[in-house]
């Protein structure tokens, strides 16, 4: 199995995540697209770990998962707070820093 297959797979997942973050207006969907991008990078790290027969990359994937869990907790708290203030999770409403 060439490493290119895994590169192209994680690249495709990453670009789908970027498209989702740019296309959608729902803040939760944008957040889920970011999770998708993180997972694409994790998959590539695991593939390189297998290729070089080194388990340090898997430790790094583990740390990325830890940071992602912390990020989700804080981010969802922020989204719930925004929903409580403006009764919407539409990111187009959240442009008050412009004025």
């Amino acid at each position, binding site marked *: *199995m*060439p*490493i*290119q*297959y*895994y590169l*192209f*797979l994680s*690249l*495709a*997942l990453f*670009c*789908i*995540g*970027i*498209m*989702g973050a*740019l*296309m*959608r*207006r*729902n803040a*939760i*969907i944008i*957040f*889920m*697209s970011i*999770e*998708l991008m993180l*997972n694409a990078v*994790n998959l590539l790290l695991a*593939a390189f*770990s*297998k*290729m070089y*027969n080194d*388990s*340090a990359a*898997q*430790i790094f*994937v*583990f*740390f990325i*998962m*830890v*940071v992602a*869990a*912390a*990020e*989700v*907790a*804080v981010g*969802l*708290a*922020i989204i*719930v*707070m925004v*929903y409580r203030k403006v009764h919407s999770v*539409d990111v*187009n409403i959240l442009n008050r820093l412009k004025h």
Partner: protein
Amino acid sequence: MDILQIIFWILTVMAIGCALGVVLSRNPVNSVIFLILTFFAISGHYLLLNAQFLAIVNIIVYAGAIMVLFLFVIMLMNLNADTEPQKSWLVQLAGVVSGGTLFLVIIAAISKANLLGVINTETTNIGLIKVLGQVLFKQYVLPFEISSVLFLSAMIGAIVIGKKDME
């Protein structure tokens, strides 16, 4: 064709199809379900890559904890309707074009880079929890402890942000 290659292609099609479902489905609950399926496909890839511990942690942490948190928030906000306002088609087209351009540019760079790596299919023990624990608690013990501080601060931060206003 080897049985492992067949499993690889099935998991790849499942991962990319469900990732497209996350982005394209109108209902946020369907997006969450598609994302969980994507995580299961990625866990299958981890199993193919001899990362057994990561496969289990991916299912427990991502599909089990994080996505349930997403689902709870969606249910709490009562967002499971298809009435979400859409961006104009011009902005959507711009998003697809920029994502696709990045895809093509990195594919061109990779094919020029002439990466010669082959992932052999023989099983190794680098992904077992015994080996990973040895590495984690010998070489990477300081980042591990710092991540516990990160978790504490994330927990306190989430509580402080989510608290109702005092006045």
